[in-house]
């Protein structure tokens, strides 16, 4: 059952169109992640949901009720702002407890909830400080705490971990996800970090220029990217793209580029003669004794357990993720094997999946 529904939502700032005819259903109790590059309209969408920005066109419903004209106060939404929006004249304690204070919760209960949130967020030592006396990451955690003590029906998070160090971010990812599993509150979570999106989301909504490029489970987006843009956006290191055409060889389709020829599955929908882009994920490629592509190692980047091998096959640049035990000195010739099930083909003109 959808909890939040966007029906043909449009947003203009004067003559500038930011979001156009956006349709989206956010399932009840799900953790939905809005993913997209900077400036694609994520914050704008969140702010419209919260009622902080007027909706130019279309209808927003929450729990089947039209929300377009409902005051932010009456939407029962907790939000973590991208710019934190802390109360400058209140201490951390008061900041986190403000929603409880205005709801006239008892002092004791407020203190209990604030302390709990502070403990989860490692803020216990800072409760009596003022926002201007905190670092960026500490402020961001205060903003998180303010939402965590709420029992709202919808949570909106706008890049709540962007200012934390890698370790704290991983810790907070887990905390947020556990909080969600416990409370089952419908959550819209904005990020431009695809790892965050992949690890936390029930459903990812990938936005581009104010429109939805693709939405689905993290696996959907990773395994069946609908467009070249999605394939490029999801996955790290980024997917390899090879431009080529489809040729028919003995009745089976073959992908052919200047440097690479590779037979495709017989049931492949691509037409002979069609110009295509072939997407190969670095982790779907394998260094093998005999392979489908022969290439030369340009550079090996160690990432810990693995290494990213930058290869050159003719003029084609390829990245392969390999075990770090694979010997790959620069200049070495290697063979690369392609996992046939995991080839992504896109039409070169429309960039849509074939």
């Amino acid at each position, binding site marked *: 059952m959808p909890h939040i529904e966007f029906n043909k939502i449009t947003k203009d700032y004067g003559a500038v169109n930011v979001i156009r005819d956006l349709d989206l259903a956010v399932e009840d109790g799900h953790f939905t992640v809005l993913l997209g590059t900077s400036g694609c309209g994520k914050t704008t969408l969140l702010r419209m949901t919260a009622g902080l920005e007027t909706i130019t066109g279309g209808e927003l419903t929450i729990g089947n009720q039209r929300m377009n004209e409902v005051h932010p*106060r009456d939407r029962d939404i907790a*939000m973590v702002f991208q710019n934190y*929006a802390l109360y*400058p004249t209140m201490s951390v304690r008061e900041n986190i407890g403000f929603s409880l204070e*205005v709801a006239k919760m008892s002092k004791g209960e407020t203190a209990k909830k604030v302390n709990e949130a502070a403990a989860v967020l490692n803020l216990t030592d800072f409760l009596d400080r003022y926002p*201007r006396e905190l670092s960026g990451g500490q402020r961001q955690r205060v903003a998180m705490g303010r939402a965590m003590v709420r029992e709202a029906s919808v949570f909106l998070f706008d890049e709540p971990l962007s200012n934390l160090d890698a370790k704290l971010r991983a810790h907070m990812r887990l905390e947020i996800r556990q909080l969600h599993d416990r409370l089952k509150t419908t959550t819209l979570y904005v990020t431009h970090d695809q790892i965050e999106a992949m690890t936390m989301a029930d459903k990812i909504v990938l936005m581009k220029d104010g429109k939805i490029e693709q939405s689905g489970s993290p696996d959907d987006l990773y395994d069946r990217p609908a467009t070249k843009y999605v394939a490029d956006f999801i996955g790290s290191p980024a997917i390899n793209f090879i431009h080529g055409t489809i040729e028919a060889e003995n009745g089976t389709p073959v992908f052919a580029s200047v440097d690479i020829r590779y037979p495709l599955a017989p049931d492949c929908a691509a037409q002979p003669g069609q110009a295509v882009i072939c997407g190969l994920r670095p982790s779907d490629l394998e260094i093998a004794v005999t392979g489908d592509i022969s290439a030369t190692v340009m550079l090996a980047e160690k990432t810990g357990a693995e290494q990213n091998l930058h290869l050159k096959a003719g003029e084609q640049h390829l990245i392969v993720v390999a075990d770090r035990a694979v010997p790959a000195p620069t200049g070495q010739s290697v063979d690369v094997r392609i996992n046939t099930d995991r080839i992504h083909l896109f039409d070169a003109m429309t960039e849509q999946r074939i």
Partner: protein
Amino acid sequence: MHVTEKKFSRFVSSDHPLPWLAPLLAMLVTFTIYPLIYNIWLSFHEYAPFKRRLEFVGWDNWSTLIGDDRFWASMGVTLLYFAVVLTIELILGLALALLLDSEDFGFGFLRGLLTMTLVVPPAITGMMFLLMEDPEFGVITYVLETLGILSSTQPILASPSTALMGVMLADIWQWTPFMVLIFIAGLRSLPQEPYEAAMLDGASGWQIFRRITLPLLSKVIAVAVLIRGIDLFRMFDYVFVMTSGGPGTATYTVSLYAWQQTFSFIKWGYGATISLVTLLVIIFIANLFIYLAKVRW
């Protein structure tokens, strides 16, 4: 726990500041420090009319002052005037500022209109209110009588119980817009995000005002209260024009009393003593206020 921080000067600094400061120091010495010291010196002397010169009188002026009932009465009038007018101008100013802080059509015009009172010289304002509060044909008298608040046998400015209120009216009319202007400027400079957060946190309009707006505005309010408060303490024009301190001594303020002693009675030393005490009281109240207001952000 408060973390100390280094503050950087907002303006240029120099390794050799003295030449740059000299003009300012000269001004300060000429127009502030010298008169102050002269005033202190004067308070230990008195003008002897027949000898036509100042004579040293020791602590005479100060001991006279302590036993001077008229001085203490005028101090009482001043303090009352100060407290009542400041409170009303503050609350009214804040309320009007909140109402006028809008981008909607027409509000800019209203704000402009409000500044008009500040252009009128206070003495003229006094004359205007003198006429408006006239028992025969004053419009304020007429309105108050019609509303049944005032009996027709009671002239506002000539009755001891209402005279000071009559004067206050002129002050409030003229200076509330000053407060409004400062507060609107303050409101305009407040960050918008805390308001958005507070709305989502479920705060009502009143809660937002009390917990967000008021604390954010506290510095501005403190400055406005200080400026206006010091001004109120020196109030002279309105009583001089409207009541000359009467009826009896009902509206005799300290500055009017000092003026009377100095220029009507030619008691220069005593006048100087009165103004010195007034200065001390202002300094005391101002510092007490700064201490109590504890503006903290």
